[in-house]
């Protein structure tokens, strides 16, 4: 895998402590009800044009170049659903489906990046797309409408 796009215009090495993971399931929120994933839901903040105030802060730079995902298993799903249901209660029109996905070989790498505040989230990972990334390299395992969990 190559990551030239990930490292475009930065000296940060976002791949430190990252690894390919084709075994575990991950959760990511997506938009309108649908049966397939859309590339829009897999655009990083960097690709959407966000500017980072401190370009030397590699954790911030890399965070904006990765996609937020949560590792999804029997130990984590209750906490993940609770967080997303909190979001849903506040903003019911904001990406109100939860996709459960598995990355295929060549899609990219994940790095464990726990969130500290405002509410700690040990399940959080950054997913860094490889240069070859496309949605065929992501297996959609389940699509959960958050409304059904209200």
């Amino acid at each position: 895998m190559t990551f030239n796009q990930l490292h475009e215009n930065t000296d940060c090495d976002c791949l430190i402590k990252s690894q390919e993971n084709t075994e575990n399931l991950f959760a990511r929120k997506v938009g309108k009800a649908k049966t397939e994933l859309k590339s829009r839901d897999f655009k990083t903040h960097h690709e959407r044009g966000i500017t980072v105030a401190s370009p030397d802060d590699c954790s911030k730079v890399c965070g904006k170049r990765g996609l937020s995902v949560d590792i999804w298993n029997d130990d984590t799903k209750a906490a993940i659903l609770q967080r997303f249901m909190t979001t849903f209660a506040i903003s019911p029109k904001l990406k109100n489906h939860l996709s459960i996905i598995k990355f295929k070989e060549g899609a990219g790498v994940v790095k464990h990046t726990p969130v500290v505040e405002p509410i700690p989230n040990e399940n959080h990972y950054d997913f860094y797309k490889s240069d070859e990334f496309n949605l065929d390299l992501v297996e959609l395992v389940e699509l959960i409408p958050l409304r059904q969990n209200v």
Partner: protein
Amino acid sequence: MFEINNNRNVASDLPIITNNFQVLHFDEFPILFIGENPYGNKILGSLVCEDEDDDNLFRYFQSIVKDEIYFQFIDKKISYLEVLENSSSIFVLDKDINNKIIAIFHISFSEIPKDYLPLPNSFCPDIAELMSQRTH
């Protein structure tokens, strides 16, 4: 995105947070947050939606809240829906991904489409830092 009549467009810094910004709930973006406007009023805000057709357009509610209402909210005595229901100062702010304000609208609660309203269980998440601000 829901349509807002252009006559609701205002040029006002009342809903703009300039001090003490604090995120109450984060989910990829700040979803629920508090802060103060240039006049020291508390502003409670939320990310409402992203434009489905424009990657770079985000819509927020930002309302001026009285201290009494704010403390009732962080004490979970009232929901975010009730805060909005009882607010006479609801502003809609359209911003880009870098928080640059594109438009500000002053609307009434009744102008918000029902499916964009917070749910009745939209209570303030537990945040340790907020506990110290509580009234009891």
